[in-house]
């Protein structure tokens, strides 16, 4: 039978009432209003944070020799969470002494299968106390509880579980060579994933038979110190892991210590360069996991809604405090306007607020210093002529919060397109052809990660080959796994974490 498909005839045969609505709904809009508000849903588990933490050296909590402490605050409330010890050079030295002792007397000679059991224990204990650690992480660092609960803590446990299994299989890490532990390694980690970065560093190091002196970031030491308690529960031999807290001076004492056979650093490119210079004379072995300015490249044939979701997750995950954040969106010109509309619509449903509320999507900015830096860079974007968009969501009156933000009309030379913002700020550029996309994506001193969205398989493989980045996410973004090597190209660093490749950076070959 013949049926007309002319859109103007869509209402043929319908009743008059319906015809009335037919085509008079001009400028269709979606209403994300308050018809159904979610009530507050705070996570209430006790984080069991002590009021003060000493240093963890030689398996015991010891007071800093100079007796100095500083307050660690909750960035969502600006209230003090706990007091953290400041480790002096002398404290760092005693941590190295303890580590060296543990290495020589216990850890190096322990059979791999026994060493592995300790690492398994750590994984299990962390799983047991996952909720408590997640709450502590959110209170101390400001990240939404749903992320610390569903990502940070389980992923940290997974890293220990994965690497535990390597401890007695090191012979398979480097075919054709014999592997040995390096010795004592010094490690410095950032504030964006405090417990997870600690796991990325400690798990492969001790599984391979090394001992560790590690320093968490100044603003986020609480979960590291809780982790120290957990190491005691695990019965890990004294001195295998030593945790010293403090700021830049403590870090410099740690990275510059002559007993360190290797330094592993995750943090900003600027500090990475400082450490490289500091170690130039000694020639200490290093791995560096530094900054990024990842491009997320969206082609017109991509699965659009998943790409929107990937872009949102890519830049607003953990308030954008992610070294591999997809902070530059490169969208094909043919779909740019509609894609940006969809992004803005999606941003309307993001919930910014109390990190402990289970429905919070974007929590608190980690520190006032970081908030100031974000504000400064956003101002530069406006001043340089980019167009700012922020959704209308309400922000809490106290604490450090920032609206999810995107910039259109951004050019390659804008600071917001070149510098790592480390906040919930997306810079949008457009491209016309694949070659142009590649050129723009690679036009950065960084090379940590990249994203590509397209339905065409051969284009994915070509883009994956051309994008100069250590991790390429195709039709997904911000995915991590202990079995999957992670690390950068160019000024995003060298060395890998995760997988067999990462383990190889924690052994000596002979």
């Amino acid at each position, binding site marked *: *039978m013949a*049926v*007309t*498909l002319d*859109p103007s005839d*869509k*209402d*043929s*045969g*319908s*009743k008059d009432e*319906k015809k009335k*609505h*037919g*085509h*008079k*709904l*001009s*400028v*269709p809009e*979606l*209403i*994300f*209003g*308050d*018809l*159904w*508000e*979610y*009530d*507050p*849903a705070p996570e209430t588990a006790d984080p069991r944070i002590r009021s003060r933490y000493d240093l963890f050296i030689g398996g015991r909590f010891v007071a800093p020799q100079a007796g100095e402490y500083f307050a660690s605050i909750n960035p969502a409330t600006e209230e003090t969470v706990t007091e953290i010890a400041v480790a002096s050079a002398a404290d760092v030295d005693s941590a190295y002494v303890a580590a060296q002792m543990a290495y020589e007397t216990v850890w190096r000679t322990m059979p791999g299968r026994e060493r592995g059991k300790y690492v398994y224990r750590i994984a299990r204990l962390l799983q047991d106390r996952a909720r408590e650690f997640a709450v502590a992480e959110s209170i101390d660092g400001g990240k939404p509880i*749903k992320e610390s609960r*569903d990502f940070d803590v389980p992923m940290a446990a997974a890293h220990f579980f994965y690497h535990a299994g390597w401890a007695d299989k090191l012979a398979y890490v480097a075919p054709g060579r014999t592997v040995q532990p390096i010795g004592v390694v010094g490690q410095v980690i950032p504030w964006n994933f405090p417990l997870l970065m600690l796991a990325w560093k400690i798990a492969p190091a001790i599984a391979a038979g090394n001992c560790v002196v590690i320093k968490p970031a100044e603003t986020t030491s609480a979960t590291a110190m809780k982790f120290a308690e957990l190491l005691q529960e695990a019965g890990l031999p004294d001195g295998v892991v030593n945790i010293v807290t403090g700021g830049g001076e403590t870090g410099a004492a740690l990275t510059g210590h002559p007993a360190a056979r290797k330094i592993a650093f995750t943090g900003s490119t600027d500090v990475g360069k400082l450490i490289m210079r500091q170690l130039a004379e000694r020639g200490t072995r290093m791995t560096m996991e530094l900054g990024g300015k990842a491009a997320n490249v969206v082609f*017109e*044939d*991509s*699965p*659009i*809604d*998943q790409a929107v*979701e*990937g872009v949102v997750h890519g830049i607003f995950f953990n308030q954008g405090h992610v070294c591999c954040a997809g902070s530059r969106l490169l969208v094909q*010109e*043919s*779909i*740019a*306007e*509609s894609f*940006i509309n969809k992004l803005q619509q999606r941003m309307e*449903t993001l919930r910014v607020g109390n990190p402990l509320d*289970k*429905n919070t999507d974007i929590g608190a900015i980690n520190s006032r210093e970081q908030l100031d830096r974000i504000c400064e860079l956003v101002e530069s974007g406006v001043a340089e002529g980019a167009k700012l968009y922020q959704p209308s969501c309400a922000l809490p009156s106290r604490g450090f919060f920032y609206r999810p933000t995107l910039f259109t009309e951004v050019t390659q030379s804008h600071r917001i397109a070149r510098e790592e913002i480390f906040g919930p700020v997306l810079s949008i550029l*457009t491209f016309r052809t694949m070659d142009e996309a590649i050129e723009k994506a690679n036009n950065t001193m960084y090379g940590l990660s990249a994203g590509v969205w397209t*339905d065409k398989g051969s284009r994915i493989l070509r883009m994956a080959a051309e994008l100069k980045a250590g991790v390429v996410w195709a*039709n*997904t973004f911000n995915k991590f796994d202990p079995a999957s090597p992670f690390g950068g190209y160019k000024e995003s660093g060298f060395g890998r974490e995760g997988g067999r490749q990462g383990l190889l950076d924690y052994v000596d070959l002979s």
Partner: protein
Amino acid sequence: MFRRTSAWERSYITVVSKHSKVEDFGTVDRVGIEERVAKFTTRSIKKQSKLWGLNTAVSMVDLTTLEGKDTPGKVASLCQKARQPSDDSSIPPVAAICIYPSLIKEARKLLADSPIKIASVATAFPSGQSSLKVRLQEVKYAVNAGADEIDMVINRGLFLAGEYDAVQDEIAAVVEATGDATLKVILEVSELETYDNIRAASFMAMQVLRPGDFIKTSTGKASGSATLANTQVMLEAIRDFYLDTGIPIGMKPAGGIRTAKQALHYLVAVKETLGDAWLNSSRYRFGASSLLNDLLRQIHKEKSGAYQAPYYFSEAAGSY
């Protein structure tokens, strides 16, 4: 500035033809959309917002019985349950009952003075495997018998054979046959198998529907039925079609939604995808039978603070 049209934008207004491909309507990544809907399930709905959600869900239920053993007696009991789901008068009636055509007259009598709609499946439900002529006759029979709403099935065989223009022609013919009745187009998503197919079929249907008509996931008679993910594919298609044409189409997931908790997850998806305008029974329905009792159970629990036994509720399955 940006050019206005694009491959996927244009696709909404692409007239389906012999040359149409599923991809013309945009593609869906399976892993991505399943990750997305998993996040809906982590929304924590408490207290007043939970009560609002549960009551709203009750008002959206198409209380369904579609069995060979259905009798006028069974339908009478269904109608009574639909009008007054529980003895708590603050709980709203359901949106509709959903039955086979032969029982419409019975139901019409019982619901004459009620706002509750009578929905009837038609078009050789659930397989659709009859001639178009017979299927259209069945639709007219149901409408004449007093059905307010018709739940039709699309021709999955034609769809999977790539005859998209014919699939759409058939839907258009049913639209015409329904007259004043509201139409719900069942895609039978589990037989379409891929999310790309579900998205394309949604557009093919919406292009010939009228404002206020629905698309629906499943018959409940196939191996798979509604999931958060296939419902999300359809919600996103509805959203894109609405923003493109201004025509609002309703959504009805059916089959497999048995618990209040699930229903809240589905409503979270509606709230965060289509927004407030779809949070009512004129644009969203649940095709379900046992869901209603769990909604009632949870409402009573919210109000009394005590967990309820299933046999407190009429027609409840779990009476041990």
